[in-house]
Every structure is written in structure tokens, then in C-alpha cells.
């Protein structure tokens, strides 16, 4: 069912609330992968609050849709959403990164409910997602599998091996995303290793490709819904995003890939986010 204006407004609010919580947790945990957590948030919010068939009370429900965060360093952003959805008590996040906490920078599926696979070493998630999608087919299940990758992550050869496999197996129950924020750690992706044309590459490997603004909920919703209707091939949604989205000093800045916040920086970041929140139309 397409997103209504009201629906878009609700997701927009939720996304800024999640970003707010990411900043708060980063302050208490000493440092986090802020840039990529802030850029991925809108797509994750659309999935978790609108599209994924999940039930927080039944994290192991066999028929649930699966989500794999292949760019596992976005774990702090993902955990914030899982906690908000009620997979666990979100108060636990105050111990993020602390000794003995279930939450480290990269989520551990054995310890974090709602996390379908442990990731963090880049280039692994897509193949795991393919396994889940093939598994659904073999078991005649109608769940869908979603996988979010970083754009820098696309340098990894395993991504391309996996995409050949997904195309070959015509996995139309698989939707992948690229968080195309154009930065990795050491700088702009195109300066370090040319990735473009990303869509043409996936297309050549048998994928349906969509290129959208990854901060536009209408576009995100439309693309996810379109992918659900495509038959005979997997879909990849290349989401153009801004690394550090929502916080002026972090937007488009490679050095905010990972960082800590003192109370001044935290307040500055929260002020930016609150301003965006207030400016939500309607």
C-alpha cells in the first residue's frame, strides 16, 4: 500500500527521533560510526516502520521478513531502531560499547534480538541474504529478505560474486540497498576506486536497478513496493544519501565516519536535528 502524506510525515518524524537517539547514545558510549548511521536511517526507518513483516514479540518467527545490515558498522543506528520497535528494552542502549554489554559497535546476532546476522566485516552480508532468500524458496516461505550495503563496501569482490549468484538464481524475493553516500573512511569513493556506474554493473549481473534519493520517503516507499512486484530477478535500490545526514558539521565529511562527542558537540548536533524536526511540513 503506497505511503500517504500522513504516513510520510510519521516516518519523517520517526527518522529524526532515531537520529536524535543515535547522537545521545554516541555521547554516552564514547564514539560511534556516526556518518553511515545517519545516512542509512531513512531507508531503515521506512523498512522497520512500514514495510518489514516482523513482530518484536516473536524475534524468531519463521515467516518474518529478514534484514541484513551488511554495512555492520551502522550497528548503533540499527540497534536504536530495534530497541524502539521493542525487540529489547531500549534503556539497555545506555551501556552500548561498555564491558559486558550485549551491544558492541557491530551487532552480535547471538546477543541482540532482531539482529538476523552478525556483520561488521564488509562484503559478507549480501551472500548471507542470498542464503536466506534461497532458503525461503526451498521451504516455500513467502518472507522477503532485505540487505543494506555501504557504497565503499562495493569494493569487496565478494559483493560481486554474490550479485552474480543472486542474478543467476533469479531471487525476486531479495531486495538490496546501497547507501550511496559517496564516502568511505579515507575519502570520496570515486577518488579512491571508481565505483560508477553502479546501476549498470548490477544490471549486467541480472538485477533490476533503481536509483533514488535515499532521504525522500515517497521515493523510498515507491522503490520498495516496486521491488516487491518485480518477477524473475533481484532488485537493488541505489539510495543517494548524505553521510552524516542531519548534522551540519558532519554532512559530507569523511572524518565523521567514526567519532566521539563531547557535550558541546552533542548539543550542537541535537540542535540541528531538532531544527529539522520542527521544519517537518504540515
Amino acid at each position, binding site marked *: 500500500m503506497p505511503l500517504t502524506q500522513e504516513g510520510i510525515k510519521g516516518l519523517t518524524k520517526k527518522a529524526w527521533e532515531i537520529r536524535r537517539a543515535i547522537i545521545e547514545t554516541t555521547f554516552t*558510549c*564514547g564514539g560511534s560510526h556516526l556518518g553511515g548511521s545517519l545516512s542509512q536511517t531513512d531507508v531503515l526507518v521506512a523498512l522497520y516502520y512500514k514495510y518489514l513483516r516482523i513482530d518484536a514479540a516473536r524475534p524468531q518467527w519463521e515467516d518474518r521478513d529478514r534484514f541484513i545490515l551488511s554495512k*555492520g558498522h551502522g550497528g548503533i543506528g540499527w540497534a536504536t531502531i530495534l530497541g524502539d520497535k521493542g525487540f529489547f528494552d531500549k534503556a539497555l542502549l545506555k551501556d552500548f*560499547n*561498555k*564491558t*559486558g*554489554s550485549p*551491544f*558492541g*559497535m*557491530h*551487532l*552480535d546476532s547471538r546477543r541482540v534480538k532482531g539482529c538476523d546476522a*552478525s*556483520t*561488521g*566485516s*564488509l*562484503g559478507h552480508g549480501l551472500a548471507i541474504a542470498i542464503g536466506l532468500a534461497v532458503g525461503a524458496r526451498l521451504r516455500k516461505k513467502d518472507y522477503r529478505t532485505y540487505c543494506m550495503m555501504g557504497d*565503499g*563496501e562495493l*569494493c*569487496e*569482490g565478494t559483493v560481486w560474486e554474490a550479485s552474480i549468484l543472486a542474478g543467476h538464481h533469479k531471487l525476486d524475493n531479495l531486495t538490496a540497498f546501497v547507501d550511496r553516500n559517496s564516502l*568511505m*573512511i*579515507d575519502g570520496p*569513493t570515486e577518488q*579512491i*576506486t571508481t565505483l560508477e556506474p553502479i546501476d549498470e554493473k548490477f544490471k549486467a549481473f541480472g538485477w533490476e536497478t533503481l536509483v533514488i534519493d535515499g532521504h525522500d520517503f515517497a521515493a523510498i516507499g515507491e522503490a520498495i513496493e516496486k521491488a516487491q512486484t518485480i518477477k524473475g530477478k533481484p532488485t537493488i535500490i541505489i539510495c543517494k544519501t548524505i553521510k552524516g545526514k542531519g548534522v551540519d558539521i558532519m554532512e559530507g565529511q569523511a572524518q565523521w565516519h567514526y567519532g566521539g562527542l563531547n557535550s558541546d558537540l552533542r548539543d550542537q548536533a541535537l540542535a540541528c536535528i531538532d531544527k529539522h524536526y520542527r521544519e517537518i511540513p504540515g
Partner: protein
Amino acid sequence: MAEGMTWSVTDGDKLTQAEVYGEVLSQLGDKYPDIIAITADLASSTKIERFGKKYPERFINVGIAENSMFGMAAGLALAGFKPVVSTFAAFTALRSAEQVRTDICYQNLDVKIIATHAGISFGQAGSTHHCTEDIAVMRSFANMTVIVPADGLETGNAVAAAMEWPGPVYIRVGRGFEPPVNKTKDYGYEIGKAITMREGRDITIIACGVGVLHAVRAAEVLARQGLSARVINMHTIKPIDRDAIIQAVKDTRRIITVEDHNLIGGLGSAVAEVIIETGKACGFRKLGVPDCYSIVGYPEDLYHYYKFDADGIVETVSELMRMEIEEDEDWEDEV
């Protein structure tokens, strides 16, 4: 050997191992014009970027593509260069194990690898970024030399020495911000020669990496309890200093190893292999990370949790001191 060691750092005691490495490598650039420095989107984290800033034309950032990076290093070595490669230990010894073994070690190529964030020193990142397997993996590759420096200054020494050492070398450093164990770099570092940090008669603690600091601290506590512990810094795991181990068996009859690594296959196993071959009686314990995926947390907490900090060493020493060891009067005769 000493001739190769032309580097210096100020404030060496305040720098991390990786920071000293980056600095030393950049100082070696003129002496070794064939060095090509390579990384996979971890120039800043591994500190290899210092070399890159000084010699941009001899620096390659391949993006997040470790396997191709190690293969490419092999190709550059075949083309006559001296590649120096840096990424995290997990992405070296685990992800790219086959490139390191088959492309580099099999052909015995002159590739120097400095892998950072090893062991559980990147505690909060979790097991995807921990690497408690690399010593085991790397020492099982024929032709590979494996070095685990104790601190920043020793890292500098190891990097400089590696440039003069033939064939592939794996140097493993932590992320650590621990204080150094060496006061100066001029203590006669040599690959393959263990360093006695402290003499002792009752027991020998053989350590590598951050374990050396814990061992030295433990020995101080033990001295106050009236026990004389020898501390050996076994910075080279392969080729291992057999003589130092055999001497320790002979002199103290009790040995404990300490490492930030899985208890299977690392320093402890390497030392045990030598002890067993002597056929002599020797009490022995390994300290390190048990065979599990570590909990997350601050490294110093994790070292304590897994009992290989000074407290854990002291506890294990007490246990081992209670053990009866049947030794013959005559070392030559005893089997």
C-alpha cells in the same frame, strides 16, 4: 643488523604502536626506495598514511578490497618492489589468508605486513574486528616470519629490522594505548632473539605483545611476595627462540605464557612445542583468550576478565607454584 635501524621518534612512550609504525615507515622511505605502501581504506586507522603523505607516488589505497590488495602486493614484489601492507589483523589473517599464503608465502616474496587492531585490543568493536587467530594462522604458513612487538618502540625496531629480513614478515600490533615497557629503542632488538626483561629463578613468564606489560607488572607483585619470576619478551613467534625456552625449563621448571590470542595455536602452543621436545619435567600454563568469541568491552577490562592481566598472571603463578615437579638431579639424564 643494527645498521638497518635508522629511525628515531620523540615522545615514543606516548605514541601507540601504530603511530610509531607509521612514523618509522615514513623515515625508512629514502633508505628503501622500493617500498610501496598499500592499504585498504584504513590509511588513517593503521597510520600507514604517514608514509603516503611523504611519498604520495609510492602509496596506494585500493579501497575496501583486501584480497586484491594482498594479491597486488605479490605482483608488486614480483615486479621488484618491497610492498608494505597494512590493514586490521582480522582482514589480513582471516579474510585474505589465502592470498597471503599462496600468493605471498608460497612464492617467498618480499612483502612486509603490519596488521593492526589485533587480539581483543579493539574490544568494543566485537568479534568481527577482533583477531585472536592470526598468530596461529600466520605461523602455519611456511616462509612466514611472525613478530608480535611488545610496545611502540619495539614496533619501530621490528619494522626497521623486517626491511633487512628476507621473505614475508607479519608484524602484529594492538590498538592499545598501554604504557610502553621499553624506555629506549636501543636495547639490541633482533628478530628471533627473545629479550629477558627481568631475571628470575622460580618461574618464567613468556609473553608477547601487550602480555609483556602484564607479565612485567605481575613479576613486580610476585617479587613483593618473595617469588622470583623471569620475564621473557618473546617478540618473534616464528622463528622462535628455542634456546631461551630450553634455558627457562632448565632454570625454573615452571613456565607461563601470556598473549592476547586464542589459547589454541598462538605463543603458548609455540612454546609448548619446544618444551615437550626437551622431554624434561616442566609445569606449564597458557594465558590468553579462551576458545570463544570474546565479550565486548574496554580492552583492559577484557584482559582482566580473561585473566591475562597482572592479576590473572599472579593467580596462575600461585597455582603453578603449588605443583610438584619431579626433576632429576642430572639434566642430561632426565627424560
